[in-house]
């Protein structure tokens, strides 16, 4: 069992599909898997941990069925093996309360979903540059 580069938890299948396409557009060598609810996501992360593999980046929506994004990030941080995997919130909410809470619960960044495919690509390019190129060289 291998881990995807990007572990994306998103219940909006439309946005998930667009995301998949955008990631492919930015770098088709980057793999992405999409999980539609919080409980499944946690279970799958446990399995990956058992197999000693982990994703390079976890993207979370805020409102998820089963387990909310905030609960999920807390549970992820409780797994020592995943403690340092970068977790980024990717959501429509601009509520400052949500942003603050996500940081407190252990997220590394908070991004509001850009409007449209083209904006998403631009957004992903800069993310890719940072997390998959510069970040790695930094480490």
């Amino acid at each position, binding site marked *: 069992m291998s881990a995807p580069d990007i572990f994306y938890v998103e219940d*909006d299948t*439309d*946005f998930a599909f*667009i995301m998949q*396409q*955008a990631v492919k*557009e930015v770098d088709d060598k980057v793999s992405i898997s999409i999980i539609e609810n919080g409980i499944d996501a946690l279970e799958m992360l446990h399995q990956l941990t058992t197999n000693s593999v982990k994703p390079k980046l976890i993207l979370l929506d805020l409102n998820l069925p089963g387990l909310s994004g905030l609960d999920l990030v807390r549970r992820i941080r409780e797994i020592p093996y995943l403690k340092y995997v970068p977790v980024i919130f990717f959501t*429509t909410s601009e509520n400052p309360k949500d942003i603050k809470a996500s940081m407190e619960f252990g997220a590394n960044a908070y991004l509001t*979903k850009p*409007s*449209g*495919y*083209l904006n*998403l*690509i631009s957004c992903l390019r800069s993310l890719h540059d940072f997390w998959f190129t510069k970040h790695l060289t930094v480490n």
Partner: protein
Amino acid sequence: MQHFQVDLTNCDKEPIHIPGKVQPHGFLVSVSSANLLITYISQNAGHFIGINAKDLLGKHINELSVAINATAPAEQLSQLLNVGKLNKSFENINPFRIDINSEAWYVIINPSGNQLVLEFEPAESNLALDVQKVIGRSVTEILSGRNLETLLTNAAAEVKKVIAYDRVMIYRFNEDGHGEVVAEVKNDDLEPFFGLHYPASDIPRQARELYKINLTRIIADVHAEDAPIITFQEDGAPLDLTHSGLRAVSPIHIQYLKNMGVASSFSISLMAHGELWGLVACHNYSPRFINYKARDAAKLIGQLLSSALEYRQDEEDTEKLQQLIAAAEAVSGNLKNYGNLQEALVAGKTTIKDITEAAGAAVIFNGAITTIGHTPTEKQITDIAGWLQANMSDAIYYTNRFPEIHTAARAYSDTASGIMACSLSKDLSELIIWFKPEQLTSISWAGKPDKPVEKGEDGLLYLNPRQSFEAWTEIVKHTSDRWSNEEVSAVVKVREEIIYAINRKANEIRLLNERLQLAYEELDTFSYTISHDLRTPLSSIKSYSEFLLQSNKSLDDNARRILERVVNGADKMNFLIQEILNYTRVGRADVKYHKIDMAALLKEVTGEVMNALNPPNLKLVIGDTPNIYGDQVMITQVFTNLINNAVKYSSRVNSGLVEVKGVVENNETIYTVSDNGVGIDVNYFSRVFELFKRMDNVKDFEGTGVGLAIVKRIIEKHQARIWFDSKLKVGTVFYVAFRNL
């Protein structure tokens, strides 16, 4: 000598019950009740019985009896007196027939103090008819009258038949004491008095009291000289003739009758509820005497008529009252059924007018005047309302002489000589007014009430009775019919109902407002949620379109153009949703007042606006910037919108000028944002602050029509005021006045 006040009540002072004289067609003898010795005797007694009246004074009544008729028993009179004394009444004795000089006479006995008064009068009247026979038929005739008016006319006709006087009138005393001829039957050659009104002073108070005691009164010959009453008593206390039929008439009244050309007069009192309702007044133009029995018959007619008219009057009053009550109830019912007050009061079959006998009514409510029936003009009603507001101290006001009180009302005295008003609100701005017209009938008074007072020959200040009965007509100006107690109580009742209805309505409105407020809040929440939820699918639409454009290389140009339009549309919609969110957010937020550094705020806002729009040739001036209190974020929104608009709409004129400045005035700080741009069409003035409203002349400019709606909302939240001046192609000035805390 007592000094009389010279006024119309002059006659009231005359002691008419002790005239010291009797009418000369009969004679009077008064004996002490204790010993039957003659104390008083009228001088003319001698003339009838052929001895000197004075010689009888102090003698026993039996001596009079002998003097009258030597052949009859000497005790015939003393026996009568003793029987009457024993029975404590002379009712069954009166009249007692005796012969004097072989002629038939009546003796009528009445007690007066410690005296017994014997009046002698001829038993023959100069009436050919058998009175008793006529009466029975008359009563039937009289009572056949269906209403008060025919009842009275029938009565006058029957009385005339019985006593055959030239003229028989029925007077009625009105509330203020003045009399009115309400029925008349007369010989054809006589001038009619029907409808004439008499001043109250014509029949003075003490005369009216005597009419209540003596139900008939005859003055047989106005021109005959009265016979004085003599007595042997040194102190000469005058004999009280209250119950006397022969009692001499007041010289004032005699003069009055002479002036009318009347030679003989007869009256029958009409009583209702123990009060003098009126008189059957009979005039004859030659001397006329009717005997005791005829007078008694007339008295009977009077009593029958009295009870009949009491009943009929009550019946008519009750009927009238019932009508008013029914109308009041109908109007009260309307108040419950009609949605609006004016409609309830004037639109139904029975209206507010019908609860009184008014000719018209006006309802002043919610700043509008609604009228029904005959009323003054709206302008005049406004005048009346103004006067009432200044002068009304109670909830209800009424007068039947309004133009006498408020001279401006003389211009419309024909419709509003009488007014009754009731207030529906504390500040008297809401009223109902009823109107009664001037009494159009010209009322003829029997002489000028203001005739100057003349000194009598004897030096007494007697008011001279009317020298002529030529009625002169005086239109009773500025006076309407009176407002009856029944009308007033109907108004009081309906007023209560109306106020109850108004309060109920006010309560309903308050509840409705509360519900509206809730609904608004719900709507805000709803709009917020909806807008928010719309963004996700909208975002998908845009993303899919862009993805197609980006990834699908097989798309032709046409498909690409269409997809681009989809993306454009989605963007616009997204922007609108954002604006709605901003707008609803204002509704949801609470204002937290802070002192705002306006210089800093304006600097930041203008900087941003100028940066974003970057207009060529536009000058932006910031004047004084007094600080204000408000919510920093919201106030920033207000000025961003106003300045953005000012700059945007004047960016295309040659030398655009936008000026922002504030000034402190009394309780407010007023900021103005002015420009010399495109301006606002006057037809749009009322819609400037409405959501999504954009003017025709700004179609070329970017905008959503939400900005000013947000501004208005924020201003309202701050309990501030906003307004504007504008002229097409000249420019616009927006004013915002913030309260100084």
